């Protein structure tokens, strides 16, 4: 988009490979050039559309069932996308029918880990990355750690994992959820791990890994971090600000 002959910009063309950030944007006065301005407007339009894209929960459910996970399809109390966006508390709790469905699955014996896959603010992210991440994670978890039920939730927020985890008597809940779409990343997946999930847990009681996608934190790196956090959370019986990710720097993207 930029003119290769712009002497201000030439040195930057080589550096763009180190970051997806919009570095070295050509100027018109203090402002950016027309080409850069319109590239930004297009990216914003794409992100806006991604926020409102529908979630194909049936596809994700089928993919997980094919891997022999016990899958349950749930929905939050937010009845549609607008209610979901404007009333976060509805996205944090289950609708009644889902609650009943979950009660039927409840077991008396605690399981180690319940997975919750929710669309959040980017259904695109969940559809692309949730299943590959679960594959990578399953390969890294020790044999002694058992993944229990996987819940696929429409219009869910992070805290809905608390109610689901409590209902299934899980020691840990791992919520995989679509993050708010960015201009350069409409498909970032977030992962939130909560020890002893129950309604009312705060964000300080969770560990979060964000920006999971091939151009960000790749599946293998994310799975390695999660496997570490899961093992440590089970060993120390806690998550949150007291549990630091000590795995060191991830393998950095090229």
């Amino acid at each position, binding site marked *: 988009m930029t003119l290769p002959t712009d002497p201000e910009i030439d040195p930057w063309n080589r550096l763009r490979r180190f970051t997806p950030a919009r570095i070295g944007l050509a100027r018109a006065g203090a402002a950016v050039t027309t080409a850069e301005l319109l590239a930004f407007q297009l990216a914003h339009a794409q992100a806006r559309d991604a926020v409102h894209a529908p979630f194909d929960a049936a596809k994700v459910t089928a993919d997980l069932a094919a891997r022999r996970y016990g899958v349950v399809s749930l929905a939050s109390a937010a009845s549609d996308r607008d209610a979901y966006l*404007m009333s*976060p*508390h509805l996205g944090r709790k289950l609708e009644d029918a889902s609650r009943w469905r979950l009660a039927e699955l409840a077991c008396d014996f605690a399981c180690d880990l319940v997975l919750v896959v929710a669309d959040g603010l980017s259904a695109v992210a969940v559809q692309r990355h949730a299943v590959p991440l679960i594959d990578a994670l399953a390969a890294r978890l020790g044999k002694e750690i058992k993944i229990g039920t996987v819940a696929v939730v429409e219009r869910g927020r992070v805290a809905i994992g608390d109610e689901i985890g409590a209902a299934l008597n899980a020691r840990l809940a791992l919520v995989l959820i679509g993050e708010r*779409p960015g201009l350069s990343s409409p498909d970032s997946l977030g992962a939130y791990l909560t020890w002893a999930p129950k309604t009312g847990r705060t*964000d*300080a009681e969770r560990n979060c890994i964000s920006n999971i996608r091939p151009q960000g934190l790749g599946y293998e790196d994310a799975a390695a971090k999660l496997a570490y956090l899961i093992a440590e959370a089970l060993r120390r019986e806690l998550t949150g600000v007291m549990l630091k990710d000590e795995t060191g720097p991830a393998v950095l993207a090229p």
Partner: protein
Amino acid sequence: MIAATIAGQRYGFDDLRVVMAKATPLRSGDILAGVAAASAVERVAAQMALADLPLKHFLSETVIPYERDDVTRLIIDRHDAAAFAPVSHLTVGGLRDWLLSDASGPDQLKAVGPGLTPEMAAAVAKICRVQDLVAIAAKISVVSRFRNTLGLPGRLSARLQPNHPTDDPKGILASILDGLLLGSGDAVIGINPAGDSPDRCRDLLVLLDDLRLRLDIPTQSCVLTHVTTALGLMNAGAPVDLVFQSIAGTEDANAAFGVTIAMLAEAQDAAAGLKRGTLGTNAMYFETGQGSALSSDAHHGCDQQTLEARAYGVARLFAPLLVNSVVGFIGPEYLFDGKQIIRAGLEDHFCGKLLGLPMGCDICYTNHAEADQDDMDTLLVLLGTAGVNFIMGVPGADDVMLNYQSTSFHDLLAARELLGRRPAPEFEAWLAGMGLLARPRALPAPIAKMMESLR
């Protein structure tokens, strides 16, 4: 009971908390909390009732009980009665008139700050128009110092925000160099790490410190990680300039951030003990934003603007270098659109300055809000006119790690040109020495060399 009568009809409000909430200009977060006025007329009735309320009332009635909340306790226990004396006879409406009048110059406004409670500042903001929020704030300068001088009249600074999705050092460095060439970075060079492992944070701190020393930049750095992580890093000898923490206006909301007032005091002491500031000892960097208490269900039936002002009551205990309202980050359920974000940004800046804080603003929005870059331009010009201490400088206004839009290096340049504002003086001298003040993106040899070394 607090009340107002309009055309023979009496509007009663149960208590201070209720009248404050109902007097707040419309925003989605207060509707979500169920505390907003039920009609446009009830809102104005609440504003009228609030305007007639004596400021002294705020010292006898709290919005959250004293016994229940440590933020309330610090507000009441640390109130400066002597500073309050010159305005103690006024109502909220009378305070607005006084703030706008020629009787309140910069010296009077600076002196009265410690005498105002956050709730008083919030109340007067509710009955101010945008014009008032700008005009009053423009009379107040709050100066803070670490390695340079921020907040002087006629200056506009920026946090250089070089975030990267995987914290790649080369990517971060490329963004920093781009920002420096365009004049950003005098407030702080501050990274939000994608992963907040202590090792990762230490590596980033070392990267920032090496860069600062190699280029001899009169500024400070920060890796925005939890205060407990920063404490551990300081104890381990990492080069921590500023200690960052998100804070809110209730004890429960701070607990949701995993932070207590005692923890902040410990971090402030630890940072001061490192003696890394050359010009001053302001070493704390706080971020806030309307709606944070509600999002952790810790709002106690209060409106979000009042609670935001109470977060400033927490901040002013710790003599911060930077206080940043990340106004539009939280999303449309709290601030629905550009109009609500713009007003909230101006309210936050106004309340913070009135309470004596070095206020900056992350002029920003998310992709699920009804806002765009036009709204950011509007708020940038308004806040620049109001004398905001600092804004964000993000490459192309697109934060590729946090996934939201802010202001760009180019926006900072444009605002400085348009409004006649200059960088912090020490940083300005450094830019001049590098040839960057006369010509942004001139390639001074040390920076050209660093760019060349990125392979």
